[in-house]
């Protein structure tokens, strides 16, 4: 399937670089200042090529990801990956937002099914799901490569310039249905895949291998350096498909006993850096491994050292 690179992210992937993306989360407020600041921090690491802007995560409505993406990219200079969920919009609304995104100079869009509203803060809300995430990928693909809308009508004027990604959850058990589903997204036209957080390197490698049997779509593996034992065990207990290795949990539990805050942080940082440098070095060996999606909101200190470490030979 033809792939053109419209974004810096996609250009870097197609140039064979191992790329790093970050994550930004607009809140339930009309103010985006702190998110722009965080984007600027990510940008200043000099190592993050783009950052995702979440769309109503956990089905709790916040600033429109389209508006937030535009302002963040404009004010921080960091390229964004505009996230778009199927939960809240019909195919017409998705399409018109995508036209808007292309017009506003957003170049990456990430297609998500989205959590069911029943799991969020407005369970009374009507779920839409006119399309699913694979069909949304196809919609973007047709807009870009055929200049057609959801019904095959022609799009006039300038070309649509969007690279479209899909998501995956490599830690699911069993993982085969997930792999097949991701392959469907690739065949529908996904340019890249970003994954949910994963800690276990074996599972990550296994996912990459299994997926490679269906498609060569490039994968950015999601990682999350936890700041505390609480965060790590939260992921272990409550995030679907995420298992945190016992060693990590035990070690972080011990760190809790260190009374001196600065010392504790030093230990945590050190552990994270070693853990994730090793992790990235391992997954980099796989041909379809194109980068890492680092979810470390509010924890910028470890990002640069992890990346520098992973880039060292």
């Amino acid at each position, binding site marked *: 399937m033809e792939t053109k690179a419209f974004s810096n992210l996609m250009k870097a992937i197609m140039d064979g670089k191992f790329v790093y993306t970050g994550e930004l989360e607009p809140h339930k407020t009309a103010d985006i200042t702190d998110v722009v600041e965080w984007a600027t921090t990510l940008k200043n690491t000099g190592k993050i090529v783009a950052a995702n802007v979440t769309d109503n995560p956990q089905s709790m409505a916040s600033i429109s990801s389209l508006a937030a993406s535009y302002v963040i990219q404009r004010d921080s200079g960091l390229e964004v990956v505009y996230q778009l969920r199927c939960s809240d919009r019909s195919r017409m609304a998705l399409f018109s937002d995508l036209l808007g995104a292309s017009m506003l100079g957003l170049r990456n869009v990430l297609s998500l099914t989205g959590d069911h509203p029943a799991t969020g803060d407005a369970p009374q809300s009507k*779920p839409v799901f006119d399309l699913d995430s694979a069909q949304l990928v196809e919609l973007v693909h047709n807009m870009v490569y055929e200049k057609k809308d959801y019904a095959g009508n022609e799009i006039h004027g300038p070309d649509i310039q969007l690279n479209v990604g899909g998501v995956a959850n490599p830690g699911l058990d069993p993982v085969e*249905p997930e792999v*097949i589903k991701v392959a469907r997204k690739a065949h*529908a036209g996904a340019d890249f895949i970003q994954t949910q957080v994963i800690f276990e390197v074996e599972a990550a490698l296994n996912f990459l291998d299994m997926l490679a049997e269906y498609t060569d779509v490039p994968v950015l593996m999601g990682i999350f350096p936890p700041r505390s034992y609480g965060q790590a065990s939260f992921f272990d207990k409550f995030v679907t498909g995420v298992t945190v290795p016992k060693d990590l949990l035990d070690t972080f539990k011990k760190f809790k006993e260190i009374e001196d805050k600065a010392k504790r942080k030093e230990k945590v940082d050190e552990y994270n850096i070693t853990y994730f440098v090793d992790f990235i070095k391992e997954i980099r060996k796989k041909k379809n491994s194109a980068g890492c999606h680092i979810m470390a909101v509010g924890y910028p200190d470890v990002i640069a050292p992890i990346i520098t470490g992973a880039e060292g030979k």
Partner: protein
Amino acid sequence: MIIVEQKPLEEILGYLKPYKKVLVVGCDGCTQPPRSLREAKSMAMQVEMGSKLEKKDITAKATTLVKQCCKDSVAGLGEMLEGVEAIVSMACGAGVQTLAEAFHPLPVFPAQNTMFIGSAEHNQGDLVEKCQACGDCLLGYTGGICPVALCAKGLMNGPCGGCYQGKCEVTKEVTDDQGNVTTIQNDCAWFMIYERLRDQGRLDLFKTYRPMRDARVSSSPRSIKWA
């Protein structure tokens, strides 16, 4: 089966405030739990007793029809209607509307909430939704498991990220007669589809991408020409 749930008696008595002579009409058709003559009689009794408590005197007779949604069948009510001021229907929404149209200007009131098309899961004693009458049946591709009715998001290319160990992220709270609340975690429809097709050696169907659906076939109001 069309799964129904009885409305609270207060609501039904509320409808009947202006009337004294009422006919309760059951249906021998597809409602589940059954809403036939026995249930119609019990409803008539409840209406009479309930109205007494409200210091009113409603006389309620009961009867039933083979198929309340069939115009020919409802004509049989004829003489039962003498002196009747209002009808209470025990049938699904289609039955209620058929009576309302056939016997206009006589008012017809529903005694049930029509819930869904489903079947009984005998191991749990539960009535479970199985079909949303989407107008373009996909069961031939999905191992006989409906992704429209059984997937919380109605996805065509599942499972979504909310599926873990075969369970769906969407839970439901169910309150029983005693007021006990239990949280039910549904099985993920797409996981079941995967397992069924895998076990039948037909995973190729699971690997196939399903394009956007045409929503017109499932958009109300719908009708088809018959004979």
